[in-house]
């Protein structure tokens, strides 16, 4: 037996053992001594979760399920998680245990309880072990339970369908048809009523809106007036206005006195005017009677015609005089 053969045997054995051990640890998800963080989760049950399943946060793998054990008293199951690193978990973090896919893989996912509301296990005080943080978890029902629930629902539906089938005959159908027609009529009436009420309501609304706008405008005016009054009061202008009003009142008194004096003189003026109007009336009467030249002019059309002819001839004469002055004026110095 040569030494080389012995070395070869030893090397093969060591390589075989190393490959087996390291491969097993790698497949198990060991981090080979790298620092890790342990987090515990308490849940009522673990479903199909198994050791080595992934732990995810926002879909990113952050660790693995190491082991789980039923708590003393049997009220919960403690799941030990090993995280490759400690992610920044939300304050209200919970552990949701659910299938990763439809093929039997399960996972633990850190979620925000407010974002994913389920009945998470309430961790009782003093549940921490070795200062390891403990989260409350919720386990989704697996497909078998969902199937069982679906089976129950289908059974109930079957019973319900059977009852409906027995209760639903020709008479029931006629009654239902009549009921549907009645409901249709009632619906139309209700719709008409609603349309009317809607129109009325629209009118009232527009009126109310307009009134409201007017009230608003009045309120703004009033507010502006009040602001101005307030400004006036504040600036002391109101005293000045009151003084001016007093002065105006005094002036009005003086004016009234003058008006009284003028009124007394007005009587004489009125008498004179009345006399003048009387004379004018008499003159008018004479003119209308055709007395005097003015009366004849107004009553005798012939006279007017002749006067007009005379004026015409005078115009012609003047025109001719302008054109032929030598005919009428002769100047001779010598």
């Amino acid at each position, binding site marked *: 037996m040569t030494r080389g053969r012995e070395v070869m045997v030893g090397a093969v054995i060591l390589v075989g053992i190393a490959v087996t051990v390291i491969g097993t640890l790698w497949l198990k998800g060991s981090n080979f001594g790298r620092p890790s963080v342990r987090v515990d989760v308490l849940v009522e049950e673990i479903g199909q979760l198994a050791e*080595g399943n992934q732990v995810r946060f926002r879909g990113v793998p952050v660790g693995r399920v190491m082991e789980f054990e039923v708590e003393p008293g049997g009220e919960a199951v403690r799941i030990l998680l090993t995280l490759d690193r400690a992610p920044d978990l939300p304050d209200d973090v919970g552990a949701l245990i659910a299938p990763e896919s439809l*093929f039997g893989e399960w996972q633990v996912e850190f979620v925000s309880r407010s974002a994913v509301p389920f009945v998470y296990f309430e961790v009782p005080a003093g549940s921490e072990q070795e200062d390891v943080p403990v989260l409350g978890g919720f386990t989704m029902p697996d497909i078998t339970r969902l199937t069982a629930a679906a089976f129950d629902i289908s059974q109930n539906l079957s019973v319900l369908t059977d009852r409906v089938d027995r209760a639903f005959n020709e008479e029931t159908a006629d009654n239902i048809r009549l009921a549907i027609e009645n409901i249709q009529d009632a619906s139309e009436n209700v719709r008409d009523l609603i349309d009317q009420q809607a129109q009325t309501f629209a009118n009232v609304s527009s009126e109310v809106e307009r009134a409201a706008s007017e009230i608003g405008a009045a309120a703004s005016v009033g507010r502006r007036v009040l602001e101005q009054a307030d400004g006036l009061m504040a600036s002391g202008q109101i005293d000045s206005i009151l003084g001016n009003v007093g002065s105006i009142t005094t002036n009005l008194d003086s004016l009234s006195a003058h008006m009284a004096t003028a009124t007394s003189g007005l009587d004489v003026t009125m008498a004179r005017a009345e006399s003048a109007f009387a004379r004018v009336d008499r003159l008018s009467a004479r003119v209308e009677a055709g007395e005097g030249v003015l009366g004849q002019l107004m009553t005798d059309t012939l006279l007017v015609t002749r006067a007009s002819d005379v004026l015409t001839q005078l115009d012609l004469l003047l025109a001719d005089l302008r054109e032929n002055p030598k005919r009428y004026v002769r100047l001779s110095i010598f």
Partner: protein
Amino acid sequence: MLASSLQAIGRTAIRGVGAVGQGGHLAVGAVRALRKVDIWGPLFVPQLAAVGVASVPIALFIAAFTGIVLAIQASYTFTGTVPLYFVGALVGKTIILELGPVLTGLALAGRVGANIAAELGTMRVTEQIDALESLAYDPVAYLVVPRVGAGLVMFPVVVGMSMAVGIAAGWITSLFLLDLSTPQFVRGLRLFFEPYDVQFALIKAASFGITVTGVGAFFGYTCSGGAAGVGRSTTRAVVGASMLILVLDAFWAAALL
């Protein structure tokens, strides 16, 4: 006619019982011979080399092509419905639980079992074993114990390496021949992995090692009839070891899973 038939049945039964008795006698002798370390100790390392190291290439060759075929067939099977990353799960689970130990055991049954049966059978028909007895050497301690011990130790080692190579071959096949990435393959590989699977495989491998070497040693040690007898013993050793491997495979599956 009836008498001859009954005679044949009786002869076969007597031979069977006799073989079981011989086997039991040899097994008890081997256990007793464990105390004689001074006899089998110096021969143990050479047998480790002959049984284990020399078997590594054929075991890895078989494992590599098993991994390749498994990956391709898995992808062919999973097309459409099942996610392709299940190729990793199928390759890993199948190689670790079944094909790694069984195919390696069958291959080594042909190589190691036949070798031991032929070697001991030749020694038997040439009366070398008788010579050992005449020299007050315990032939069981000298011939059987180191071989069976080497099978017990080296079969798990070789099977462990075969599993690693088979999975690696499946991974490389998935990477280059299938539309599968390394993270997907590893995800599937880790999906249903349990460390107990490896323990199960190593337990089976150890039992196969004892079976292959023990059956080879038995048929060689009890060989008779010259060169033809050696040939028969070799054939019987291979066939018997292969059958026992499959029986043990079913037994361990029923007992441990």
